[in-house]
């Protein structure tokens, strides 16, 4: 398992690179690698920009039916998200973004879990299974 800090734009790039290496290593197709890295980029940026910094944990997991997958958990101690459903709406943003980060990332992965409590930070876990 890899744990990477997300405290700067450079860190976001490092998370992308690390996810790419792990995903390629586990035999994800080029398209699936690209989707996972893109989702990771969105979520790492959110942890940095909205969460004031956080961490990314990348690990290889095995499903109940024996499939290999990459699981990435992002967490931060930022202000949290008051209305999670709203935050997952395409185009919804509290800042200058496009509001496609969360909703788009969810479409790019196989599993997506967002947990957040206002005042207690945000955690997002995604999994992409190899086919």
């Amino acid at each position, binding site marked *: 398992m890899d744990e990477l800090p997300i405290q700067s*734009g*450079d860190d*976001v*790039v490092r998370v*992308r*690179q690390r996810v*790419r290496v792990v995903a390629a290593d586990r035999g994800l197709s*080029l*398209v699936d*690698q*690209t*989707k996972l*890295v*893109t989702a990771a*980029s*969105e979520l790492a*940026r959110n942890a940095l920009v909205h969460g004031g910094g956080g961490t990314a944990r990348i690990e290889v997991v095995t499903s109940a039916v024996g499939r290999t997958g990459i699981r990435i958990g992002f967490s931060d101690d930022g202000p949290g998200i008051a209305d999670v459903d709203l935050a997952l709406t*395409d185009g919804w943003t509290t800042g200058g*973004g*496009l509001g*496609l*980060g969360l*909703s*788009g*990332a969810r*479409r*790019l992965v196989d599993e997506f879990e967002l947990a957040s409590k206002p005042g207690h930070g945000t955690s997002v876990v995604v999994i992409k299974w190899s086919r």
Partner: protein
Amino acid sequence: MERVPILKLGRTLFVSIQIDLQDESVMRLQEDLAGELAATGATGVIIDITAVEIVDSFIGRMLTMIGSISRMFDAETVLVGMRPAVAITLTELGLSLRGVRTALNAEKGLKLLSGRA
């Protein structure tokens, strides 16, 4: 923060993105391009993303904006070399890059630019 260089050849600005783009670098590129367009009167911008492995919503928005900004300076932007996996991912993300012209490679991009009156 690494900076993406801008090359001027004739009336066209060439940008070939060879680094792992962090947000600051893309914003800087946008500013540098706006500055060059205002200073040189270039009529076209070619952005080569052959080496770009991912375009997320932030980078995608910046690319679209570069297209709009260049139009304000009476120039046109063509995005060349987008990888198939990037195009597929962008679509699933929900981004359309509307308003930016695309071409297979720099050569075809140049043709597109010179085709305009």
